[in-house]
């Protein structure tokens, strides 16, 4: 076992001098994880060496400050894996895939500075467990590809919103009704991105029940209610429609501007894909999202596409590391798409209120079938 001291001490003594120090607190655990005891002034690993493949560090914060744990590449700069926000007394795991090579392990008590570092050696992997040396590059590629997609979809959303707003404001109902589900698909494809802007999302996409008493009802669903007016509803005046239309364009412009600056990471992609299916499960398959227009299947299709894009961007990270999950996701994406394709009508879909109970039940089961393996994607791609 090796014990590493705070940076000041480390500088004075030199890393090698510390080899051989022991600590009774840190032990290798039965499940093969490497115990790390992190205090305010020390970072003790149960071992400084492990075989290549999937490594699991079990980091216990024995100190009083919030801690972080990093596995850094040989250059001491590139982060191979990290776990943040380890509160005092809390144990967090870091699961990371590392090929043979030299690394640094680092605790960062108080979340400041370079951390308490120690060399960590990964030896040759057992046969069949080799890890691609360019995993970091694959992760970056996935993030970059998805960023381009978000950019493209958000720009199309803005263009479409402008068309819809113009038609709606002008009282061209047939045109507006036709555009409504089509334009919203751009929104629904990147819905987790839109929802990440907590101030804009309710202005643009709140349903009436989402609002508090006295809160103004605006955005897409305000227009939806006016276009597909329920019984006893009083239609908006031209001025009111103009106001809703202007708000849609203004806030979508803001959203698109902000979306360009977003940075993506593999966990965000994978979590976003899972959230899109959650959206389908809780809002679309129940017919609650589009209470007046019943265009829920357009949204369903868009959510599914957005999730599939994220999965496809991430798929290279599963190759050779979790082929089973990859195959399961591929199959279930195809199956659910085939289920949905059965309801295509011309350019669009059947309206939700035309679906029978059994059809909705089948769709819900298909969503569940895909959502389960999809919920395991994040853990598979971040390591």
């Amino acid at each position, binding site marked *: 076992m090796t014990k590493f001291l705070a940076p000041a001490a480390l500088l004075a003594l030199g890393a090698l001098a510390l080899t051989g120090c022991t600590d009774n607190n840190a032990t290798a655990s039965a499940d093969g994880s490497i115990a790390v005891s992190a205090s305010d002034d020390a970072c003790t690993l149960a071992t400084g060496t492990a075989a290549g493949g999937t490594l699991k560090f079990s980091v216990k914060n024995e100190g009083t400050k919030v801690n972080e744990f990093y596995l850094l590449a040989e250059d001491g700069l590139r982060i191979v894996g990290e776990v*943040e926000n380890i509160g005092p*007394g*809390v144990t967090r795991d870091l699961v990371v895939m590392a090929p043979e090579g030299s690394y640094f392990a680092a605790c960062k008590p108080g979340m400041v500075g370079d951390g308490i570092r120690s060399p960590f050696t990964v030896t040759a992997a057992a046969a069949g467990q080799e890890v691609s040396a360019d995993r970091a590059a694959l992760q970056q590629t996935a993030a970059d590809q998805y960023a381009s997609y978000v950019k493209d979809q958000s720009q199309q959303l803005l263009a479409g919103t402008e068309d819809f707003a113009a038609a709606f404001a002008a009282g061209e109902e047939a045109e507006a009704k036709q555009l409504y589900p089509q334009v919203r698909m751009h929104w629904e494809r990147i819905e987790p991105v839109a929802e990440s802007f907590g101030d804009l999302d309710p202005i643009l996409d709140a349903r009436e*029940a989402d609002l508090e008493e006295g809160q103004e009802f605006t955005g897409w669903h305000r227009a939806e209610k006016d276009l597909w007016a329920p019984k006893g509803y009083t239609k908006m005046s031209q001025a009111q429609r103009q106001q809703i239309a202007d708000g849609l364009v203004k806030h979508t412009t803001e959203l698109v501007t902000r979306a360009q600056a977003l940075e993506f990471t593999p966990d965000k992609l994978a*979590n976003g894909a899972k959230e899109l299916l959650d959206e389908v499960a809780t809002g679309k398959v129940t017919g609650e999202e589009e209470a007046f227009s019943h265009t829920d299947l357009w949204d369903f299709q868009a959510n599914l596409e957005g999730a599939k894009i994220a999965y496809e961007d991430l798929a290279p990270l599963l190759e050779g590391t979790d082929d089973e999950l990859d195959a399961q996701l591929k199959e279930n994406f195809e199956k659910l798409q085939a289920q949905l394709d059965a309801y295509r009508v011309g350019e669009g879909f059947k309206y939700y209120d035309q679906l029978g109970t059994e059809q*909705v039940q089948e769709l819900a089961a298909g969503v569940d079938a895909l959502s389960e393996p999809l*919920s395991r994607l994040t853990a598979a791609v971040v390591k």
Partner: protein
Amino acid sequence: MGEEKKAGISRRLLLTGAGAGGAGLAVGALAAAAFGGQLPEKQATDTIEFYGEHQAGITTEAQDRMHIVGFDVTTQDRGKLVALLRDWTAAIEQMAAGQPVGGADTGSYDAPPADTGEAEGLGAAHLTVTVGFGRSLFLDEHGKPRFGLQGKLPEALIELPHFSGDMVEEQRSGGDIVVQACANDPQVAVHAIRNLSRLGFGTVRVRFSQIGFGRTAKTTQAQQTPRNLFGFKDGTANILAEDADALAKHVWVGKDSTDQPWMAGGTYMVARRIRMQIETWDRSALREQENVVGRIKSTGAPLSGGEEFSEPDFAMAGSAGPIIPVDSHVAVLHPSAHNGVQMLRRGFNYTDGSDGLGRLDAGLFFIAFVIDARTHFVPLQKAMSANDAMNEYLRHTSSGLYAIPPGIQPGQYLGQQLFES
């Protein structure tokens, strides 16, 4: 409860803990004899005292099962309503003592039995029955007084507002009268509601009823903190029966804290059926789950560290904002964010089977007792609806607020303070 099954003898003799607020327990000499040396020094039976300053079922050590029902009064006749409250009082007294409704006399062979019979041999199982009145008992839909109760509506018995995200179903909400039966045996709780409903036919009709199968709060120091259906410990920071100061401050209506003297010694019950999106929750990463709750799933400790009962440190910095996220459940609803306001929570896990889409229709039947919902519930629920990350996984499907009158003495009937004040 576990101990009862192991013992394999009549539940009437069993001890299931130190009991509710000490004074509420009757002494059973047989219980002591049966347990011999295993018994703690305090003696107890499975009955909870029905009479007292406050109604039972509030600070009573939270039982494991609940059946709650909302009634609408169908008669216009104040006399008939009062007669029902008298009948209920007598029946509750008997059931709380582990006796059948109507006593031991089985009556005529040619008449239906007074008691429906399914609780025979089960004992009282710590049964408590708590009765309260909704705003609609006092005023009809046109705002006209009912049952001669003009001037008796407490200001605090407001109409709860629509909170953001509410999907409240009217037929599950409100009601003129609420009756909460809690017990450690589900059949005892259901038996109580069934028999009270039966007594009420012609005077009241059932508006909704809900079964809870597992407590989600601890209300005494002796109890373990239970888990809700999110798998997290719930009610860690609850008001406990032993904390007289907190009860006086946050739960019991005092003579000087109400415009209605008949409410002194009473409290207000908030009841909300909160469905959980169980399946999407189960698919969320542990990281997400803990950040939503603000606590460690396994231990219940706050994310700022320590153990279950450690105070959360909301100022402790994490890598991106506080280590306990500002939109976590504990951060949004902690008393420190609400002028120290606390509720006595006494909710239950529920499931009503599955919905038509193959998902569990399950969640938390939230029950809280507070001195005034305007200060102790509405602001907290508003904050929760607006800011709590947990909303993503919740759906509020019912809502009710009820005035719980004080307890009574032998010879009185439940609600007498209201009808004879």
